[in-house]
């Protein structure tokens, strides 16, 4: 592959960011590789396999935005190249960079350099770009985090400033307090200048490169005599630069990571069965990626193909091909209360439905990228994006048979995860390489490999029987959910519980009979994906409720309100929820827009009978449980630094969602200083305590809780000592900037640095531990396995559909969420905007077809053109236990968007869509299969059509 570019090297000179440079390479080498390699400028990012499919690598060539991954070095000879590193001028940030930081257009930051350069080219052409012009300029730059809204807004702001008609600081956002005001992200500055060092940007002297030999077959047995054909092993091992070829025999400890995935080996032994395309077979470690690649091409494993199946029906049929588990089942979960059959029989209405979803890929713009090395204390250290470094440390320790304190895991700036980077496999593989070579080892997946081998969102089939009275009170629900976990467990054992929980929503159900199971197929392994198993059920539930409302002739909003639980009610789970509940408030918040959308769509449709374009409006709600299982005691540390600033040590990795900022805000608020006075040391197992497992939505509530506790505790220590120094009452003291001063007129004070010095003299530790502990609120005896902490939200979608082609355009959306308290409103909005678009992708375009999907060229992520006009409504019903009233948000926001869109499409075409993604083809099929009276489509267009 890489070898195909084999011209002899030439010296090529060009202007790079204003300076003359000479690169000495094969002229067909992509400029991207030259910039990041030979020239050491890592600000330009790579998101796909040099295919031109992502835009992350965009640079300006003579002022025009081009894909540097498709631009051969030879092309730039004598020309001018501008990368993100050259954007800022001598007097500081380019207005675009400043605007991106200010409006919150930077989340993980991986798309940011490319976005900035595409925008720069646009603003060079015009300083008065219209919104469609901005969108067109950015349509080739994928962003998985932001939903594009804030990026477009940033370009508008920068354009206005360059024209001279906008203020220079976006003062509207800056609140008086650290929390509640939209603080600028602490790490955005590095991301807009290209300085942020993501895992793939790090190099170490003597670094080796690791590549993985993977199975091309969906189901196969490895030869029982050896993992690799001995002749190929010998041949590959002798290639220049090849250092080690590792197989199962080289895993010194336990060959697996059972707590995460009970049946998945690190590397398969001879005779093992490989259950998915992309299952790893061996690791090659070489001096260069090309050398590792060459070895991969030679290595051969003897694989005996086995019959395979990707779908639920085939694996669940009698006599089905055995893949794993008993009858191909991994785990089940049941939930029963009330007498369901009796209530359903007595109900006025009983509705049945069946909904299906597809494998989804996280497609974070940064692929899996890790760097392993031995740190200064000889610990095996792995730097890589993940959700819980302590867990990764544990998995590595088990596989290497080393004590955990000889392993270190550090989370660097991460280019998005959405759950995908929770997979321990790449961490273990990287550590294994370091273990065997004692040298630095880099492992970076190709995009193709990431599609094949990284975990996916589980496809579900959800079947409902749902009862209601004629006036719209829900009477009972029977639900059966099959979750396709692919070839391996990958947390699929916990999926049924989450699937079932989400299938009931925040509604009153007098009787429930639910069962969910996870089922093995030969599809890609399942795993965490934003919402961990809840989005699929919520889609089915909220669409079924819409069907029910239609059948009952009720307004879907009223149906939901009529059945919404309050805090005191018995929930679907069979017990009350453990937090304040803002569902009613959320529904009421969208009502005005809902009525407006409905009326506009009605008028539009009415005035165009027979027109091929129809409009529809959809509504969907959700609840999302962000409570934890296991320990509910979370630890964080606070330290008074030598110069008196506050250091917070916690483990709430920031993979783009902004936890670094939120933690610093909470600490600043509790300690009583400005946020600039707080330093957050996050997610490095050698430096911070274990803060429990993080799903994105848990960090603010749980780790934030511990950060607040510990900051408050340190504050009172500081004030106590200061009171002694100043000889006054601690209650009379306040912290102002870097000093503790006595309230009142005399302005006596002592600096925080001096207080720290006094700590040392007194032998008082500068570092204290603090805990967020819900044990008293939820005593162990009555605590369910997962704390019943839930958040709610509701979305509206206004769509138009071409009845003759099935094309759908999402025109407008409204997203209302109960966030408890918006610690950083700008960030909360950004999270929601990104989640809405991800839900839109799931609704309309995204689907991994095992064995078919190859990457970003055929897995369709929403682009800037897909973005609807979006209004976010933050509803604040303060939580009872969370710090400052916060609740979890990041994952939940994706849930209602998919069903809202599908409900809107179904209403527009007059037929229920029950399989997603609703591609044009599926939509057209639904329209064509619909019985005539059901569809509102009046047949082929007639001559009298139009009439506008």
């Amino acid at each position, binding site marked *: 592959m890489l070898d195909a570019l084999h011209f002899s090297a030439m010296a090529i000179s060009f202007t790079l960011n204003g300076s003359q440079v000479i690169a000495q390479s094969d002229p067909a080498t992509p400029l991207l590789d030259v910039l990041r390699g030979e020239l050491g400028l890592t600000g330009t990012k790579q998101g796909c396999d040099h295919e031109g499919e992502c835009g992350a690598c965009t640079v300006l060539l003579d002022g025009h935005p*081009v894909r540097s991954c498709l631009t051969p070095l030879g092309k730039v000879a004598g020309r001018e190249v501008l990368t993100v590193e050259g954007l800022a001028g001598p007097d500081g940030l380019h207005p675009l960079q400043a605007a991106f930081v200010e409006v919150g257009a930077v989340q993980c930051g991986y798309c940011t350099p490319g976005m900035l350069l595409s925008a720069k080219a646009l603003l060079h052409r015009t300083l008065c770009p219209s919104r469609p012009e901005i969108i067109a300029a950015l349509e080739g730059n994928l962003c998985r985090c932001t939903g594009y809204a804030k990026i477009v807004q940033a370009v508008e702001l920068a354009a206005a400033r360059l024209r001279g008609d906008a203020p220079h600081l976006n003062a509207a956002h800056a609140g008086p307090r650290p929390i509640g005001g939209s603080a600028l992200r602490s790490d955005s500055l590095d991301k807009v200048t290209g300085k942020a060092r993501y895992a793939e940007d790090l190099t170490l002297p003597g670094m080796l490169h690791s590549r993985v030999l993977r199975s091309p077959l969906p189901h196969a047995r490895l030869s029982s005599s050896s993992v690799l054909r001995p002749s190929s092993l010998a041949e590959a091992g002798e290639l220049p630069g090849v250092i080690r070829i590792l197989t199962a025999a080289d895993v010194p400890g336990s060959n697996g990571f059972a707590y995460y995935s009970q049946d998945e080996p690190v590397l398969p032994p001879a005779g093992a069965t490989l259950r998915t395309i992309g299952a790893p077979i061996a690791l090659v470690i070489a001096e260069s990626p090309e050398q590792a690649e060459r070895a991969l091409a030679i290595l051969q494993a003897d694989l005996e193909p086995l019959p395979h199946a990707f779908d639920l029906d085939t694996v669940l049929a009698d006599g089905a091909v055995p893949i794993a588990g008993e009858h191909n089942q991994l785990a089940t979960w049941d939930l029963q209360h009330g007498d369901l059959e009796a209530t359903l029989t007595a109900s006025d209405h009983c509705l049945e439905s069946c909904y299906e979803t597809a494998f989804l890929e996280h497609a974070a713009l940064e692929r899996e990228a890790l760097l392993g090395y031995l740190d200064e204390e000889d610990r095996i250290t792995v730097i890589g994006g993940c959700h819980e470094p302590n867990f990764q440390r544990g998995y590595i320790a088990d596989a290497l048979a080393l004590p955990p304190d000889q392993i270190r895991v550090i989370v660097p700036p991460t280019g998005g995860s959405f759950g995908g980077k929770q997979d321990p496999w790449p961490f273990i593989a990287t550590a294994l390489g370091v273990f065997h070579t004692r040298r630095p080892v880099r492992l970076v997946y190709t995009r193709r490999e990431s599609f094949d081998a990284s975990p996916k969102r589980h496809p579900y089939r959800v079947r409902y029987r749902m009862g209601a009275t004629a006036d719209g009170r829900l009477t009972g629900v029977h639900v059966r959910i099959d979750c396709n976990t692919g070839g391996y467990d990958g947390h699929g054992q916990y999926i049924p519980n989450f699937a079932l929980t989400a299938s009931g929503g925040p509604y009153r159900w007098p009787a429930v009979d639910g069962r969910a199971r996870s089922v093995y197929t030969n599809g890609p392994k399942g795993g965490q994906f934003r919402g961990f198993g809840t989005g699929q059920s919520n889609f089915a539930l909220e669409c079924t409720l819409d069907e029910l409302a239609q059948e009952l002739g009720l307004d879907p909003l009223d149906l939901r309100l009529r059945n919404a639980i309050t805090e005191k009610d018995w929930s679907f789970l069979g017990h009350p929820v453990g937090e304040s509940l803002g569902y009613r408030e959320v529904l009421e918040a969208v009502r005005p827009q809902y009525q407006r959308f409905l009326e506009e769509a009605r008028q539009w449709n009415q005035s165009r009978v027979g027109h091929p374009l129809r409009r529809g409006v959809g509504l969907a709600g959700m609840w999302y449980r962000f409570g934890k299982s296991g320990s509910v005691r979370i630890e964080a540390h606070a330290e008074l630094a030598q110069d008196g600033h506050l250091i917070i040590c916690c483990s709430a990795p920031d993979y783009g969602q902004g936890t670094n900022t939120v933690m610093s805000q909470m600490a600043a608020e509790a300690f009583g200083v400005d946020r600039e006075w707080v330093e957050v040391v996050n997610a490095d197992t050698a430096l911070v305590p274990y803060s429990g497992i993080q799903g994105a939505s848990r960090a603010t509530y749980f780790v934030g809780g511990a950060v607040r506790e510990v900051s408050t505790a340190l504050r009172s220590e500081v004030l106590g000592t200061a009171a002694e120094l100043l000889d006054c009452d601690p209650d009379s003291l306040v912290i102002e900037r870097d000093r503790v001063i006595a309230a009142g007129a005399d302005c006596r004070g002592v600096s925080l640095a001096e207080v720290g010095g006094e700590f040392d003299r007194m032998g008082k530790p500068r570092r204290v531990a603090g805990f967020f502990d819900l044990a008293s609120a939820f005593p162990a005896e009555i605590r369910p396995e997962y704390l019943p902490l839930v958040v709610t939200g509701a979305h509206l979608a206004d769509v138009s559909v071409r009845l003759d082609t099935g094309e759908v355009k999402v025109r407008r959306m409204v997203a209302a969420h109960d966030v408890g308290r918006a610690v950083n409103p700008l960030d909360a909005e950004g999270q929601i905007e990104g989640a809405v678009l991800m839900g839109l992708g799931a609704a309309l375009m995204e689907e991994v077809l095992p064995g078919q999907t190859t990457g970003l060229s055929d897995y369709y992520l929403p682009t800037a053109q897909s973005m609807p006009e979006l209004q976010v409504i933050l509803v604040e019903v303060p939580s009872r236990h969370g710090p400052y009233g916060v609740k979890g948000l990041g994952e939940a926001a994706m849930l209602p968007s998919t069903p809202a869109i599908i409900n809107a499409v179904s209403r527009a075409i007059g037929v229920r869509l029950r399989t997603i993604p609703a591609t044009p083809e599926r939509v057209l099929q639904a329209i064509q299969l619909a019985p005539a009276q059901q569809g509102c489509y009046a047949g082929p267009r007639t001559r009298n059509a139009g009439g506008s």
Partner: protein
Amino acid sequence: MPAYTTPATLDDALALLASHKGQAMVIAGGTDLIPDLRRGVKCPQALVDISRIPELAHIEMTGEWLVVGAATTFAALKEHLAIRQRVPALAEAASAVGAMGIQTAATWGGNLVQAMPAADGAIVALALEAEARVAEPGGAAWRPVASLFRGPGQSVIDPTRQILTHIRVPLPTSPLDRAQGKRWGSAWRRVGRRDSLVLPILNCAVKLVLENASMPYDPPNLGGQGGVPNLVGQVEVMAEDLIERATIALGPVAPRPFRAQEAESFLAGKPLSIEVFEEAGRIAQRESNPRSSVMRASREYRLAVIPHIVSDALAAAAHRAQVGRRIHESLNQRLSGSVNQQSEGD
């Protein structure tokens, strides 16, 4: 000789190719070639970059022709004001190719030589009855673009020897046409899995030449939502006009970029009406033989949709032929957004 050269003239480029005796290949934008090199699909020993030859990146309108250098990028095509006004389908097709960062490099010539059955540049060139000028050491000659395609991904042009230098499109309103009361309209319609950066499920370009056209009229509110004019359902007012000639190009419905010739002959001499357009669409459907693509759409879907996109495009072209005066305003709006969006209006 260096493996990568960037000649300044066409003659130099041809000479360089000749001196490599089939081992060197033309590179224009490289958006197709670089991925092909990585995959090992093409293995030249040297590359001759034609993108810096001034005459190959030149756009010119003579009285009767639009002449475009083959190394002109789609970005340049879509931003060219006169093209947007007078050959709107070309501007629309250009802005449908990939996305901005692709259009700045990808050239019209490269798109034709790459010869994919649904290449946006090839489909629009067919409908516009474009001609290509192919140069080789012995000389150069014009030939119809339609004669360039051999099969999927196969062109009759040999990029190790020949260079496609220019593409020319007969221009709509020549003085003679105007004297004869003829009006032209071109239009573009594309269906895809998303709104940008995606290969088409189907694309379609059409050109209509009307005779005895009635006076242009002011259409009711052309500025639809999202800047996309609504061109559907507004055609019945044109009924007095007659179609002199029509072209319809479709992709991917055959191994090569395809002209629906039966539908075209059917249209000749017909009045403008939605029924006529729909019938043309059905004939085009019968002529088409699309394949199923797992990642894009099935044969059945493609067949089901062909009549609708053909009649959409014809309706839009007819509308433009009649309201040429007004059309560029809305088109400017439309091009600043995406042309890939469905037509929609109030």
